[in-house]
């Protein structure tokens, strides 16, 4: 299973190009799709899920062309939108059963077996008769994941699957996503770099319709190896750091006299008093990659 885009382009009627000619390959496993709002992530996902017609080029999903083989692509596609409603007055199991039918599982026996299997996998078996409207946010999200994959799609697209979840549920969902990625391609579109860090085998970063990074998480971390720094400073020092470097994180520590701020930043060389190297994080790498994108002014 793999996804391959070939000069995939989308230009809206107003002339705005949301996705510039895109050539990339996603293998089996979890792929993190990162980028700020307006980067073109949603447009790319909608094209891959055949909801949006490319202006030019195409993509092959497991060998099926998204322009000419839509039914086949839809058959092997699972999609979890960011906001999804489900049926609040239905029970968990019957809701999943209906979703399975809509997803193409017309054989009742097979569908019921899948429902049981996925209720087990998303840890909702004991809530099978509870009304969907009575589930917590995390349970609903897990049910959403189950309905997206109940028909065993080869490509699954998750749009912000952990948004709004508490840390425990977020961890549970991340683990679930990691399990799912075994023999299929999972595209995880998110703003939360930590989600990608813990699950993705491949990361694609988009900015203004273009791919600015496409490689493994380790390769992404390598970009900021020896470029990650931290310094204790005050508000004036923070302002100075912001002027010259890409600041990734600021922590205020109440018991630090005179220098209450712990500022982390990325840069080739950092010339600040008391600065020290630190081990790079994927968030550092993301900021660095975004800062290095052609449309962003790279700070010295």
């Amino acid at each position, binding site marked *: 299973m793999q996804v*391959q885009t*070939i*000069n995939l382009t989308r230009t809206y009627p107003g002339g705005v190009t949301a996705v510039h000619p895109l*050539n*990339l*390959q996603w293998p089996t496993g979890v792929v993190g799709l990162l980028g700020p709002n307006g980067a073109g992530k949603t447009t790319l996902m909608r094209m891959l*899920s*055949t*909801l*949006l*017609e*490319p202006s*030019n*080029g*195409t993509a092959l999903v497991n060998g*099926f*062309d998204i*322009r*000419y*083989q*839509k*039914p*086949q692509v*839809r*058959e092997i*596609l*699972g*999609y*979890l*939108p960011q*906001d*999804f*409603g*489900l*049926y*609040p*007055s*239905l029970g968990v199991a019957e809701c999943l059963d*209906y*979703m399975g*039918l*809509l*997803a*193409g599982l*017309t054989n009742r026996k097979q569908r019921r077996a899948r429902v049981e299997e996925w209720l087990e996998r998303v840890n909702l078996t004991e809530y099978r008769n509870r009304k969907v409207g009575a589930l917590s946010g995390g349970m609903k999200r897990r049910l959403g994941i189950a*309905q*997206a994959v109940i028909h065993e799609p080869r490509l699954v697209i998750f749009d912000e699957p952990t948004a709004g979840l508490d840390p425990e549920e977020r961890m549970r969902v991340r683990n679930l996503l990691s399990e799912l990625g075994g023999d299929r391609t999972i595209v995880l579109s998110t703003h939360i770099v930590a989600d990608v860090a813990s699950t993705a085998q491949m990361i694609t970063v988009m900015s203004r319709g273009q791919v600015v990074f496409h490689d493994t998480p380790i390769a992404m971390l390598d970009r900021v190896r020896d470029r990650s720094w931290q310094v204790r400073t005050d508000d004036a020092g923070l302002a100075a750091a912001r002027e010259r470097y890409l600041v990734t994180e600021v922590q205020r520590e109440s018991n630090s006299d005179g220098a209450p701020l712990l500022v982390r930043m990325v840069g080739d060389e950092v010339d600040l008093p008391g600065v020290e190297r630190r081990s790079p994080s994927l968030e550092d790498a993301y900021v660095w990659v975004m800062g290095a994108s052609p449309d962003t002014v790279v700070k010295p």
Partner: protein
Amino acid sequence: MSVRSATSLPRPSADARASWTAQVSGAWSRFLATLLLEIRLNLTTPGPWLVGVVLAGFGYVAVRTAPEAASVPLAWILSAEIGPLAVVLLAFVAASFAHRPARYEMNELLESKRVASEELILGRWLGMVVGIAVPLLLQYGATMLAQEGEHKSPLVAAAYAASFARLFPSALLLGTLAFALVTLTRVLILGGGLAGLAWFVLYFGQSFYPSSFRPDLSQNATVTLGQTATLLLIVLTAFRGQRRAKRAPSAYVFGISAGLLGIATLLTAIVNGQTMPSGRTATATWERLRDGRIRRQDPLPNLAWVDTRGERVSLAGSRGRPLLLVLVQPKDTGLLALLRRLDAVQKEFGTDKLGVLPLVLSEDLGTAKLLADLSGTALGLVSEWGRPGGRTFKPDEPGSSTAWVFGIDGTPRAVLIRPDGTRSGREIRLEPEAADDLRQQVRRAIAGETEEDEPEPPANPGASLPPGITPPGATPPGGMPAGNAPAPGSGG
């Protein structure tokens, strides 16, 4: 990675496509599942049951207050008098069925599942149809039970079934409109409000548009159902148009079908408007007759009506034998019994010696056939547009022109017409206890005896009428020539 332009990519082979049969089977399963789910969701909300209880209450009140708690008039009251209220309530119920809170939003489903918008829309629409049928069935069931329980009168289920069939197309049209508006706008207040406005225009603006578009008339059922189907196709087209299959052949098929069906429905309505009796044709007849100066001893104008097959039946066709013309309305007391008594009179004297013609005065032209079927008589019932208004005829609210000719303002009433086409002046009583008197008058008419006429109407009975209107039979001279008779399509 090799890069090729999209245009050079190979098109899929036929083998790569899913089989047509499997697709249809899958679509059918999804449609059925959606339908069953919608029925369940709709009927587990309080809306339809509350409206059903309200309508059932109205039905019970109708039984308690009707002059005669018999099936035919009660069924008529349910569809013709309570019907408009039921329709608007059901439209709001239909709007609530299309509203999101209890459902997965349609676009989200379409984006996340391999389901076609038609499968969802048709399933949801049929679920809505079931959801609005239930309150109506509750109403009819409660009314029937009340009739049986309170009055012990024989239950004529066919009368209620016909009443339901008369009312349901209009409920379906308004319900579909509300459903379509809420589905497309996704705003309950907007969709429900617009549907309510459409109901207001349809029921309170009836004098401002052709009667062939009135959804409350059974003769317009084809047009009403055509409008409903057109609306449904428009919704399907709209969803196809905004979804991924925007340029798919099916989107064009739905669009073109909606257009063609809309045009066909419009043409049907126009043709019906030209050929069926209506307020316009009743007014035209009245305008032709109002200047005719008819004395009592002069032949009557050649009035004409439509029979249950929609064919023309004229007064002139009955010349040469006496004709008992009986004007009735669907809500009349003891109507079926009256028709059976008239049938007995007809059989007693034979059709060659006496004609008996029940004339059903109603804007609903399907009523005559229903009464013929329910009474089980061999009488050939005919219909005329409008209710009796006596010697007053309002062109802006046209009633029966025949009733106007005879100055009849209530039903059931009978007129005995002599073989020469003149009217017998004696009052004809239709009550069971006056059967002998009726037979005696018929015998005299057959024998050609001239009975003593009732006194002439007042010298100037038209004083209370609009200027230029002269009540027939009041002033001489000359009868209206038969050639001046209006065609059935022109309301005659």
